[in-house]
């Protein structure tokens, strides 16, 4: 593409081709030739077509009305697009991301003469259950003076609500919405804090053993069929955060449809409202144009940062970051750049790092705390973690939830591998206690391996008991029954309680005459724990089963293992 005058890197252009305007972005400039990537199918574009420059970088529209929406990677609202175009995603149709007709009840919080800075609140509207702050656009610089502000009342997102004057005397009119370039991180906060508070997912294996922190990052690599998407879906339902943003990036459309149809009907136990009211879906499924897929994760993270600026805790789930990286690879290939490993571009690592670095917990200028947590799935080719995307991701994330094919095949849910996975964050249970559990898993695994070679006959009773203990821990604690309404989501309080009880069994010195007896005893223990997991917290049946477990344990317990003294009281 040739141009005269000025062109900006990442500027948005429209190609006028056969009566349609196709959105595209400048990705390389050389002399007076700019390379564009088109966010649509390129069929029918010809040499000689006109190109219109907008002077704007690719940006998202931020304002009230984002929650509950379903967007494509360029923030086109999909349900509205369907009303207009029918079954298919026609090319060259772009709609406004926010509802322009809806009126919002605006309450101002500043008065004329007040001094404000970028990111500070000038008022708020009620968006569902949240106070949606109307803020000074993040790109305005210096200290600004409020010159006018409207009275409390109903306004649309396009109505002027305030006028500000900057230090140079320039006037800015504010509406309730503004644009922000997606590839720039929003940094209007006082300071970034260390992620220390655990983000509750209500999955035992995660919260107890490999926790995620608010403002932290984690990744879920796994081969196909291991349950990455299911895990993300479950997390998006149960995670204790204010807002969940789902970026379905280059994955199956059918899975998005499931979320789309089910979420409006699911009730969030915390707020009593539909889950959709706290959810935003950015979906750019595998058959939608590749270039928009590359943009979609940035669109998602920008919206996440926007809500963080209101002092909310946001969880961004990106499924899958591998597809995003593949989109970069396709573009890099087209630009004929020198390829790096597996033909991924050489800058892959720095882009992945920059993306995950946009997560974080911050103290805003107002003193409120807000956070963005990013969880990304990775789909490594052939299920082999030694590939560039997985490796680059592992370098920058704070927790690693590796899924294993063997566990998935054995119908163990969640199929997170307890020994290979790790986390740098603090969980809800003392490290001493979880380390003890981990050690049992590790030793049990070793014994299991050995037993495959020498058979049950060749294993000592002592080792066999360790093996049975590790099996018990795996069965009744690491695995969860997602179809059971009680067991599907477990509160931290209950996790602590159950783990303490289980630890009594794991640390106990047990007296058995032989392997047969040991196996039977552990089978009964397992059955009790499974039933126990399915009962309502502190119900009569729950207490009864707890009693039964303690009794069963007392029958065989002859003391505490030497290495466990001090862990159990």
């Amino acid at each position, binding site marked *: 593409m040739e141009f005269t005058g000025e062109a900006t890197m990442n500027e948005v252009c429209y190609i006028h081709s056969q009566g349609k305007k196709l959105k595209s972005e400048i990705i390389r400039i050389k002399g007076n030739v700019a390379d564009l990537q088109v966010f649509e199918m390129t069929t029918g574009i010809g040499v000689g077509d006109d190109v219109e420059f907008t002077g704007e970088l690719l940006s998202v529209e931020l304002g009230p009305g984002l929650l509950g929406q379903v967007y494509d990677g360029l923030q086109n609202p999909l*349900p509205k697009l369907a009303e207009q175009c029918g079954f298919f995603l026609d090319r060259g149709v772009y709609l406004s991301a926010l509802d322009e007709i809806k009126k919002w009840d605006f309450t101002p919080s500043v008065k004329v003469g007040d001094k404000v800075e970028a990111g500070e609140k000038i008022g708020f509207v009620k968006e569902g259950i949240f106070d949606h702050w109307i803020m000074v656009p993040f790109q305005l610089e210096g200290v600004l003076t409020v010159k006018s502000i409207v009275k409390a009342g109903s306004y649309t997102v396009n109505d002027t609500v305030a006028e500000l004057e900057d230090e140079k005397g320039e006037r800015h009119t504010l509406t309730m919405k503004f644009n922000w370039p997606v590839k720039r991180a929003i940094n209007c906060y006082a300071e970034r804090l260390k992620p220390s508070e655990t983000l509750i997912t209500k999955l035992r294996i995660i919260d107890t053993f490999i926790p995620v922190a608010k403002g932290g990052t984690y990744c879920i690599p796994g081969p196909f069929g291991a349950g990455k998407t299911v895990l993300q879906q479950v997390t998006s339902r149960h995670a204790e955060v204010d807002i969940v943003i789902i970026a379905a990036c280059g994955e199956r459309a059918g899975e998005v449809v499931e979320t789309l149809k089910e979420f409006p009907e699911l009730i969030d136990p915390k707020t009593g409202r539909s889950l959709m009211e706290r959810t935003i879906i950015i979906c750019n499924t595998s058959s*939608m144009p590749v270039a928009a897929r590359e943009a979609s994760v940035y669109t998602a993270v920008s919206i996440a940062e926007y809500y963080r600026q209101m002092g909310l805790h946001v969880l961004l789930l990106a499924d899958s970051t591998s597809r995003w990286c593949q989109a970069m690879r396709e573009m890099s290939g087209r630009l004929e750049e020198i390829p790096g490993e597996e033909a991924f571009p050489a800058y892959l690592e720095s882009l992945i790092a920059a993306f995950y670095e946009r997560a974080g917990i911050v103290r805003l200028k107002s003193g409120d705390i807000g956070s963005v947590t990013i969880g990304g799935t990775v789909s490594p080719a052939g299920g082999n973690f030694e590939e560039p995307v997985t490796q680059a991701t592992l370098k920058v994330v704070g927790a690693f939830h590796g899924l294993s094919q063997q566990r998935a095949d054995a119908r163990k849910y969640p199929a997170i591998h307890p020994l290979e996975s790790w986390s740098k964050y603090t969980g809800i249970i003392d490290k001493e206690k979880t380390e003890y559990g981990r050690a049992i898993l590790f030793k049990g695994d070793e014994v299991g391996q050995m037993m495959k070679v020498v058979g049950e006959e060749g294993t000592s009773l002592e080792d066999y008991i360790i093996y049975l203990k590790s099996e018990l821990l795996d069965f009744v604690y690491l695995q969860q029954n997602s179809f059971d309404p009680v067991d599907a989501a477990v509160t931290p309080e209950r996790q602590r309680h159950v783990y303490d009880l289980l630890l009594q069994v794991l640390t106990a010195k047990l007296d058995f005459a032989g392997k047969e007896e040991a196996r039977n005893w552990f089978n009964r223990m397992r059955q009790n724990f499974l039933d126990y997991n399915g009962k309502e917290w502190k119900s009569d049946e729950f207490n009864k089963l707890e009693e039964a477990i303690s009794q069963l344990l007392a029958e065989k317990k002859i003391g505490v293992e030497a290495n466990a003294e001090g862990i159990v009281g």
Partner: protein
Amino acid sequence: MQKVYSKIESISGNVITVTATGVRYKELAVVETRYGSSLAEVIRLRGDEVALQVFNGGRGVSTGDEVRFMGEPMKVSFSDNLLGRIFDGSGRPRDGGPELTDTMIEIGGPSVNPAKRIMPRNMVRTGIPMIDVFNTLVESQKLPIFSVSGEPYNELLARIALQAEVDIIILGGMGLKYDDYLFFKETLETGGVLSRTVFFVHTAADPVVESLLVPDIALAVAENFAIHGRRVLVLLTDMTNFADAMKEIAITMEQVPSNRGYPGDLYTQLASRYEKAVDFEGAGSITILGVTTMPGDDVTHPVPDNTGYITEGQFYLRNGRIEPFGSLSRLKQQVNDKTRPDHRAIMDGMIKLYAAYKESLEKKSMGFRMSEWDEKLLTYGEMFEREMMDLSVNIPLEEALDKCWEILATCFEPEETGLKTELIAQYWKNKV
């Protein structure tokens, strides 16, 4: 106006370049050679240099041959007249019938708006217990059969096509052996479904490039039938040939290869085809069954690997049987709660016991002592393989479930099965 150019600048593999203006991306052209004419598609524009992919291949193309641009992208006729007809990879009749030109539609159209999709809810009955009972096929599902050369995957496809309750069957063959093509034709003819079948067949003897068009044409036609309220089953065999054709073109075009020579956009290319599987709100549906042969029986090969990430499960066809392990239908839980109350329990219970059988078998082969329980499992495993897994078994779902209970009753005591007491009370058969 059609422009004619008579100077071909370069010929490299199946790709030729000419200097031309006013040409659009993906436009179609006709190349007149000494050996007949061939269609070609614009695959790159650089200034006034136009690169075209010649469907019949570069062999025999001379620098002096004529290239005539048609001014529009590849289209295919769509109407009920297609039914019962056989075409080649670029849409020309292969059965000697007349060429169709009414209501031309574009191929490779835009993708469906996710907001317009609905949750799949209908089961596709195939009469194969390993599918119906254990990994139910669902309308609008996209599912490949992972297999290796020599396995009866085409026979399996043909059987499913004959028995599936759908309105229209579209067969897309890529690099199909001529014998296999005849096999499909005969089987569907004897089965009496030829009148509601459309063939787009590219045989192994045809120019490689033509196979690239087969999925697009087949799916474009399927999409239009689906919009008109029909339930369509699309069979694609074999997608590995399609991927290989893509690799060939990419290398000729000097694209940077990513993994084992395949282009970096392999995932996207495969996904844009498989994702055409859809259940339209208020209209018909498309179900896609593909065959992906795994070179060297290696599932981590780029083609099966990428396919697995795209499709909603997979069937492994090995030693003439659908393997219970690894095979997966991701959509089965959408339908198998509505069939019969014992369906889910039998599905899990039988497989768990079969897994136990495999362990016992391993122990036996390593020379460990067999317990009474092991012996029971061994009998069970053999019976299961003979009466359920064998591909010649052809019974409806309900009968298959009854058969499962019968097998369980023959081999085990009720409490050994791990099934719920209520179900056992209802379905347990006394020993014959």
